[in-house]
């Protein structure tokens, strides 16, 4: 080589060596100056999206390195597109977080052909809320409690948004396990539409999350006369006046098989809006994300924002979610058979 070229070449080669030798970078430094992507499977404006964005505003400062967090929506197929993307397409580098509905875990357990991933392989960061399914009936039916309903033994119309929701699933589950005669009227565009239908006496009641009932149906809970909405059954004890003495579903279901089926279904209610990372994400980074998530949930600023926007928050850790997921996937054959009515598509 010409003498003139020798020095620069050596410099380049030497430089190349220095940068390729792995430096002692701890996982702690990994997030410095980086951006984490939160990909939300449902549309902007709803509680799902709200939870993700609120968390995004507070989680960064609880992760060493203070990464920025940006939120994107990847809607479609009820968040299945986002879930698929998280599993198959996203880079498992700790910079991608997918948020999709926990219902897919149950669907996998039931053998739904559309679920092409194994939910046990996701990295579970945590969930910011639990759901408390409840059922309510309108006063215009003349019924006031579960006992009344069982005694009356007549068909009651329950409004629903569509298959795969508590609106649709729970009344059918109750028909199966308690012998109620709920007729699910599906196809309403949203909770508010069902509430209007109730006032119009087009439907008699509905089953959905208590957190939503007490927020959006407040006027109806407080109403008098025919327009009053009366809760009669709930999944878990809540302190509010209207529900603190209500029977719990698990108390009223007698048969062991039925109870097991209900508990499997109920498993997905225990962790809602979960934050996940793609399979193969390095363990240390998942740990950092879990710690950041937990700390953000305790952050007073986060709590204040959540309260202001009436966002229900209950911390569920990643480890707890792993257990729930395992339990659901380990569904007993009998429970699977009982729950098969939830499937609307041909099985695997």
């Amino acid at each position, binding site marked *: 080589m010409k003498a003139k070229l020798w020095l620069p070449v050596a410099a380049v080669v030497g430089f190349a060596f220095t940068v390729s030798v792995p430096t002692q970078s701890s996982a702690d430094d990994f997030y410095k100056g980086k951006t984490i992507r939160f990909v939300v499977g449902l549309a902007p404006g709803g509680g799902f999206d709200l939870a993700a964005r609120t968390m995004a505003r507070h989680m960064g400062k609880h992760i060493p390195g203070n990464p920025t967090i940006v939120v994107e929506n990847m*809607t479609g197929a009820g968040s299945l597109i986002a879930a698929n993307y998280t599993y198959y397409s996203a880079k498992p580098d700790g910079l991608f977080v997918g948020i999709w509905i926990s219902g897919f875990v149950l669907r996998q357990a039931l053998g739904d052909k559309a679920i*092409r991933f194994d939910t046990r392989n996701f990295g579970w960061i945590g969930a910011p809320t639990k759901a408390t399914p409840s059922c309510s009936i309108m006063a215009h039916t003349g019924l006031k409690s579960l006992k009344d309903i069982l005694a009356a033994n007549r068909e009651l119309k329950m409004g629903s948004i569509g298959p795969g929701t508590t609106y649709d699933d729970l009344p059918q589950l109750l028909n199966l396990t308690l012998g109620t005669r709920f007729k699910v009227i599906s*196809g309403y565009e949203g909770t508010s*539409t069902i509430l209007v239908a109730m006032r119009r006496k087009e439907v008699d009641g509905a089953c959905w999350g208590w957190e939503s009932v007490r927020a959006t149906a*407040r*006027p109806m809970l407080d109403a008098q006369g025919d327009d009053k909405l009366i809760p009669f059954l709930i999944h878990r004890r809540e302190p509010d006046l209207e529900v603190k003495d209500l029977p719990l579903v698990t108390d009223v279901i007698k048969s062991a098989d039925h109870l097991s089926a209900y508990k499997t279904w109920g498993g997905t209610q225990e962790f809602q809006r979960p934050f996940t990372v793609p399979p193969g994400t390095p363990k240390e980074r998942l740990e950092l994300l879990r710690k950041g998530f937990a700390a953000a949930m305790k952050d007073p600023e986060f709590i204040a924002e959540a309260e202001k926007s009436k966002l229900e928050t209950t911390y569920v850790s990643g480890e707890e979610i792993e257990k729930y997921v395992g339990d659901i996937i380990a569904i007993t054959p009998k429970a699977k058979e009982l729950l098969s009515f939830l499937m609307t598509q041909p099985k695997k």
Partner: protein
Amino acid sequence: MEYIDAFYGGLIKILPFTSQGQQAFFFMLVGIFIGFWVGILPGLGGAATLALMLPFIYKMDPTSAFAFLLGSNSVTATTGDITSILFGVPGEGTTASTIVDGHPMAKKGEAGRALGAALMSSLVGAIFGAFVLALAIPIASPLVLSIGSPEFFMLALLGITFVGSLSGGNIVKGLMAGGLGLMISTIGLDPIRGVPRFTFEGILGQGPSIFLWDGIDLVAVTIGLFAIPEIIDLAVKGTSIAREKVGKLGGVMEGVKDTFRHWWLVLKCSALGAYVGILPGVGGGTAQWVAYAYAVQSSPNRERFGKGAVEGVLGPGAANNSARGGDLVTTVAFGIPSSVSTAILFGAFLIQGIVPGPDMLNPAKHLTLTFSFVWIIIVANIITVAVCFLFLNQLAKITNIRGSLLIPFLLLLIYLGGFTAKNALGDMIMVLIFGALGWLMVQFDWQRPPLLVGLVLGTITERNFWISTRAYGAGWLLHPGVLIIAALIIVAIVYSVRQLLREKNQQPATVPGLATEPQITMLSSPVYRPLFALFFVALFVYVLRETFYEIRPMEERAALFPTVLGIPCLALALFVFGQELFNTLRSAPGRPNPGETASSPERTVARRRVVSIAAWTLGFFLAIWLLGFVVAVPLASFLYFRFAGGEKWSISILLSVMAWVVFYGLFDYLLHLPFPEGALLVWLNLFG
């Protein structure tokens, strides 16, 4: 009275006379500024932007927060008309109808007039809608409660009969297009049991087919159907958008005068828009077409429509704004949003700790806030229209720029608009598919608006049919509301048919001064028309086959709608095929189609240009898919400017850089829209 206090108080709160008012006014201005651009740019959907604005409202007081959000939302329907008129690309989903007559006006050199008419009627519509909001909330409750699912189903049917008026003469083709639209609305998971319908799992595979589960996006269809044929037309003509130069008569003030000349039409369409907006779950998307159909029905010389009749701009222009006011009524009174943007507004209510409902009408609670919404809509639109008028005439001049300079920007807008509807690449493919369909429809004289009406109304019709049947059994057929609307439907049909017969008997009078554009039909060989009709026949055969063999075994209820639609549609398709075949055989072979005035060499040039622009359009898409938006935009633009447009190197580079800066600066850097990495780059990464 407390109401008057609240009415007045609502206004004071947003004007900069108090310190709180100053804050609210400031945020309203910011909202207006954002809404202005959101309306104009197809890539910025009103919904996505509202979602981005949500985080900022946490710290604001309720009046400021809503001044900010509503200021933006109420303005997008006004400025969206601008892009529709100038470029034939819908700036917003709710301004698609303005394209049908607004863009032909621009092509005739009357862009200024169209803009003036659209903006003025938008202002009138917005104010009307705001007053509807103010007056209707107290009576909204009984009004909404009286419209049950059966009545809703009948109203949707009534809407579908409007398809007839949008058919521009050939009612059978119009009905066919409407039927196709209704059929397309069934694609996806059925709303009752979640059974997949027409999702092409066999061809696409499980993964990609779930993209179709939510159905085909209205925005992608609209952009494809209208904007792509316009681009092809622009490239073929080789001129600027405006083909002629018209003096003062084409200017903005003329459009303003038109609004007052057709005052009653504007008011009636505003009322229509507001009422349709009040219907829960229905908003500007439907209102615009209802108003357009009404404008067609109630104006003399219906053949003018689709070729640049100003009434076709005035009607929808007013309605898509007044519908916003109507939308707000249901959102405020019931918490039932009618569109994605009102859904986000509803979310904003919750964030602010406000529950829509009786509280909003309670003077002790939020009545003043409710009235401030009314004033925000009015003031925001007055400001926007006033500002727009300042440079409207300059804006109209864009139509004088030669097409080759505009095409890359237009393609960019089209693809952005398609992509950002759901942040999905699949929607861009939809744009292409419907673009091809739209172009063919134009070539063979098929009307496109009925397709959109069918698409919009299909889901509403099906859902409400099932709810009614499940909730009431067959009894709903006898509900009084249902019977009344049924009578209305029959009246509407009879009226349309009579109108049609009357017009057929009269000689179509050539209106002096209305130069109809010489039609250079590409596919002028008479063989193509029946072939296109045959495509419809084949399509519905496929639909019925799928329904009987795939859907019905899975869930009978999911198969009902496609069956009830498919059979008449197949019959219609066969009829149209017969009609086209008859026409072909009747005309002597070799003689060009009626209306065909171009000579043979012109046609060869035109044919070559069509192929060329089709290739470039496809090329843009491939570039975006393989290289990602950030690289594809400047690269493809540069290649087009230089090699297709024949522009100088300096201009090509300059414009390409401009395109890149605007795109990157706004969409990527500022808004962080999640553009996918180019597929090629991803593959290379796998190896590298």
